[in-house]
């Protein structure tokens, strides 16, 4: 039996747009489990990123309850949410969002020092993570605008992983990358997941979605269906076919 990491009940999110309310999420009930690589799929505008950012405390739901352990994060203040994010979450963004006025290494240290005051331990971990994602020291000392998109996104993953978060949230992590660098990023995420890291990834790319063991399909703000793919195995045709069938069933 898997441990529930995060639970959402009756989650709704509405935005005001031109005076009219737009209901992006509608009564979503969801549980995320420890060690899972959960993929949220759906068409553009289905509400997948909104769901992910509500679950991660980046945004507040309009209605509903989100619980992380004993903490009801939907009740937290903005600063409370910030503390929740730093202590429990890591984020990988489509646009990468490294701070371009500081070096790659400092980007990682900025997130790390927020939680961990033991600088030497932090530096050691950062170096291990950089090594794991295959970013050499010379690149670590460069600015984000001086490195490739793939290197930057892998550095973004190191930043997300530096505090050993309970959940790593990734929003279209390969969306801005070419095919090969996107693959490198997915491999990195898979490796971390295989080491026990819980991952929640939003994507509309089937190649990326195959990395997940659990696929949620969102349509018009509601979870339309769910598919269990099991442990990721590279070049597994059956896995591919199962996912294709699921997505077809969902109207993909």
């Amino acid at each position, binding site marked *: 039996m898997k441990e529930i990491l995060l639970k959402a009940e009756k989650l709704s999110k509405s935005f005001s747009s031109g005076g009219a309310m737009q209901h*992006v999420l509608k009564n979503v009930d969801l549980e995320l489990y420890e060690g899972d690589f959960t993929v949220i799929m759906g068409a*553009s*505008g*289905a*509400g*997948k*990123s*909104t769901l992910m*950012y509500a679950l991660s405390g*980046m*945004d507040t739901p309009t209605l509903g309850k989100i619980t992380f352990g004993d903490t009801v994060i939907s009740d937290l203040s*903005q*600063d409370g949410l*910030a*503390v*929740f*994010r*730093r*202590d429990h*979450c890591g*984020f990988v*963004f*489509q*646009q990468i*969002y*490294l*701070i*371009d*006025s*500081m*070096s790659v*290494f*400092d980007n990682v*240290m*900025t*997130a790390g*020092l*927020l*939680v961990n005051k033991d*600088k030497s331990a932090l*530096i050691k971990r*950062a170096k291990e993570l950089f090594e794991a994602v295959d970013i050499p020291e010379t690149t670590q*000392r460069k*600015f984000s*605008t*001086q490195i490739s998109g793939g290197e930057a996104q892998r550095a973004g993953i190191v*930043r997300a992983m530096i505090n050993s978060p309970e959940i790593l949230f990734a*929003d*279209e992590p390969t*969306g801005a990358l070419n095919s090969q660098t996107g693959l490198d990023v997915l491999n990195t995420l898979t490796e971390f997941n295989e080491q026990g890291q819980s991952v929640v990834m939003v994507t509309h790319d089937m190649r990326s979605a195959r990395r997940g063991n659990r696929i949620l399909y969102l349509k018009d703000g509601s979870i339309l269906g769910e598919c269990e793919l099991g442990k990721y195995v590279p070049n597994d045709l059956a896995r591919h076919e199962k996912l294709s069938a699921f997505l077809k069933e969902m109207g993909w």
Partner: protein
Amino acid sequence: MSKNSLLARANIRKAKGQTVAIVVLVLLSSLMMNLWLMLSMDYKKNFERCHDRLNDGHVNLAAYVTNDDFEKFASDMLKERADITDFTVSNAFVGPLTFEYNGGDMTSLAVLLEKDDALSRNVGKFEITEEGSEKSGIYLPMLYGTRDNYSIGDKFKVTLPNGEYEYTVCGFFNSAMIGSHNCNMMSLLFTSDKFEELLTDNIAWKAVYASARVSDVPKSEEIVAALKDAIAKEFPEISVTTNNYQMITTSRYISQSICAGILSAMAFLVLLIGVVVICSNIANYIQENMPNLGALKAIGYTSRQIIASMIAQFVGVSAAAAVIGIGLSYLVFPAINEMMIAQTGIPYTVRFQIFPVLLTVAFISIVVCAAVYFSAKKIKKIEPIMAMRQGIVTHSFKKNRVPLDSSSMPLNAALAMKTTLSGFKQNITVCITMLVISLVMVFAATMFGNVITDIDPMIDMIAGERADSSITVNLSIEDEFVSALENDSRVEKFYLFGGGSTEIQHVGGISLYVSVTNDCSKLNNQGMSVEGRYPKYDNEISIAAKYAKDNDIKIGDEILLSVGNKQEKYIVSGYTQNTNALGKDCIITREGYEKLAELPNVCYYIDLIEGADIDGFNDELSDRFGGDILSAINVYSIIESSGSVYVLLVTVLVIAVVLISCIVIIFVMYLLVRTMLNNKKRDYGILKALGFTTGQLVLQTAMSFMPSVIISAVIGIAVSTQLVNPLLAVFLSGIGVVKSTFIIPVAGSIIAGAGLVLFAFGAACLMSLRVRKIAPRELLAGE
């Protein structure tokens, strides 16, 4: 509407906050600039208008008459001089008088005139400014009707040479040349019955008061000297007191000069900050709007048109702000005018003045126009395609400042330091602002310590020597008087000092007011000697530093002095400074003076033991020596009464400059923080997404300003402590100050500097609270 104004309007709409901040800075500057110009250009002209309206004399003299032939002599002397165009000689009384003013005593030599005679004088008219129904009593200069001192119907208690008297105040009058105790002699007008009593009851000394208009006004000082010389040759026994146009225009406008000086300095400093902010604003605008600027160029706008639109935007806003500031200055001016009248004693009606308005608006517009042009010039270098594609590089990638893995700073401080080191424009703006404000704060602290809380340093600097009591006695009883002082247990120290209105002619120069002393080492205010030393021997003299500077007289030079027909050479032993004679005075030993003439009387300065009753002491001696005591003055009481005007003025100015400094800091911080938040909105969003709280980001933002705030405050305070006295000497040079000797309150300045830093930090924190509006969600890609 032209293309340029369309662009300008669009820019203003986009940057409302910056526009408001620039408006406030320009508004403050124009407010002070217009006040300064009104004070400098029209306020003194008001004296000229008053002087002309009353057909007042350029030279005035009051002679204590002991010879019946003197009046005819005086008339003939004035008639014979070609440089005197008109004159009036009146019978009067003179005498030192003491009365209550501003909570203390005021003592001055007074010319006492019959009211109707005074009003009908051809030269040196008086005008009644306020009158009641009382028909018997006294009319006071209008100065004494200000600040709740006297009202019509009040009893005016006055000590005259022959005792204490009480008169009913019938009204107030205005006189340009003798309407205040700042005029070397003041006047009181008596109703005819009371004037008769002056003679019948022997209340004051019979005198002649003459007012003369001269053809060459700038030479009025020399004419006075010549007249006195002529009188001294013919009537050496007659004591003469004079004043002249130059002296009065300066002495009646000391506070106006101080106020105008401070206002002008503040106006320029605030405008400087405004210009720095505008320049910084434009640089940021170009940086942020590079693609838009490229697009404008691409559709055919020339660089000149874009720059012209920016000039139109900033000059338009600044000129509008300047007009509002000028409007506000007219609301503030009546309050300043009221304070000024309490010192000038001349009525002034606030009226619209077009010239200061035009000058203020034109100056501010030209300065802003130049600042915008030079800041926006780089638009010429923008190539449209390049600009549209990528804008410009906003960061220097030469070095990763403050690497977090090796820095020993806490995280927030390290991140703040990174921002500091990458923000050159921000630092320059902060530095200039803080350097300027530091100077203002040290000035405020100096004024606080040297005037507001303790006026003694100011008195020491401008009023010269002082003791508890100053008693002038006839020479005939000097020995007995000195013996009385020696045997009085209340007397701690006494020494000969003064001469009152005794003058000495510098041959080839002007007439100098002389202070005669028997022992300079006993003087309480040794600081009055600003260079060299006091005279020690009978062939030495110490002269006013301003007079020496103006006439290139060096220490060690020999100067020729004369009284009447006698001339003697003296060696200049040093320079002195006090503003009583506006820098036209000297100190000489008794033996030195007596080589030229006998002293008409002697003045002793007396310090009493702690707790002794000064007034009681003076009264006792006055009773004992009767008419041989010519005046007995409680010096501290006089200082209190005349000093209170300056304390009030300086207090108001200090409060004003501190408040303005706070407003300036708030608006500069607002602009800088707003610019930073705009430029780094993405970074703030990322940091929030990573888990930085609003508090941490507010702290980081505020801290990023602190290195430049602290460094510039430290440098500013250190430099300002050295600058304040020289600057004050420049401001006060008109009244005879060549060396400002204010005690610079180092601790106070440090506290002021620390307060400044804390205030800037608080303001930066407050302004940085806008960071809470930055939501990490804004970073996220759309669904």
